[in-house]
């Protein structure tokens, strides 16, 4: 066992005292924790459960390609006074408009879809409704919605409007989800590096 650890260059670990081990564990935990809490902080700021998403399909080409990273904003519900908070005209991102690109999650389906708003309805007491369509698709999205659903509920189903993007950098996550073993390999390597470093 000792010889094995020595071979791997890990014999340093055996000399650590309990407090030092705890410190190393803490360093690692804080890196994970801080990454997670920054993500949650962004979620709180944008009011979106998932403020950054990666484009998974080519249905919005040529605007977005597979792997583009999108930044979302979800404080632009634009409800009327009966259905929810009213539009704030001075806001940089007023209520959702036709032509905007939104990301939505259909209840029961887990994959977020990025498509453009082509029609909107603002009933007096009903929720704000949207019809969407992919720029690269021939038909609108009623096919993609749940059975007998013809419109999206802005408040419940849409997780945000696209306000910014970085091309291609999200492709890593597509690779990771298509080859799950890459994930474990990456996590393992990162964990080892953090534990072995002392500075």
């Amino acid at each position, binding site marked *: 066992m000792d010889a094995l650890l020595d071979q791997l260059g890990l*014999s340093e670990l055996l*000399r650590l005292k309990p407090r030092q081990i705890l410190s190393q564990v*803490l360093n690692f935990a*804080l890196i994970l924790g*801080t990454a*997670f*809490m920054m993500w949650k902080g962004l979620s709180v700021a944008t009011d979106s459960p998932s403020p950054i998403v990666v484009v998974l399909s080519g249905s919005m080409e040529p605007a977005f390609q597979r792997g583009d990273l999108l930044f979302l904003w979800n404080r632009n519900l634009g409800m009327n006074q009966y259905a929810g908070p009213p539009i704030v005209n001075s806001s940089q991102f007023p209520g959702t408009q036709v032509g905007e690109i939104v990301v939505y999650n259909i209840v029961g389906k887990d994959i977020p879809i990025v498509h453009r708003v082509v029609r909107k309805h603002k009933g007096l007491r009903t929720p704000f409704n949207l019809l969407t369509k992919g720029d690269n698709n021939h038909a609108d999205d009623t096919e993609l919605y749940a059975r007998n659903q013809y419109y999206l509920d802005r408040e419940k189903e849409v997780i945000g409007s696209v306000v910014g993007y970085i091309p291609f950098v999200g492709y890593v996550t597509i690779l990771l989800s298509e080859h799950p073993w890459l994930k474990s390999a990456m996590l393992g390597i990162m964990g080892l590096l953090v534990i072995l470093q002392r*500075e």
Partner: protein
Amino acid sequence: MADKPKVNLNSVSDLKNATDDAIQPYMKTLGFKQSNTLTDIRLAIGFTACAIAAATFYYDYTLGWEKTKVYTLYAVIAYFTLNTLLTWWMWWVEGNKVYIGEREGVKVVLESHTDKFSPVYELKVTQTVNGKTNTTTSKNSFSGWFDQLGYFVEKPFMAFLQNSIPAISEPTKKKK
């Protein structure tokens, strides 16, 4: 495993860590009692922050975003407040302190420091006797207690500590 740690002689931080680690056992043989309060407080702050993050993760995973939104806001604020506190604690309270110990009313605080590209170990000794504080500094090259292969040699390092810390050579009431 090895009683004698072998260190990469080209890494100043490895040399410093190995040297720092050798202080505590030696001071223990001299009858000094180490105080771990600073480390314990750092660990407490850090793990509290981690617990908050873990709880946030758990409730977000089980209950979903909508139900936990408000609490998530508070958790995020609490987490980053604790993190700021932790950073402050590590920089301004703990700083370079590598050992705090006490023997018969004499309190010794050791702070070690190395410059980035210089193989010199600098030790700052703060000694408190009856409320009187006395600070001295001393430095020595790492080659004083690491041999050519990078093995730590105890004796010269103990001598260095004895010369640096006046409290060690002061007579004690009950000699071992």
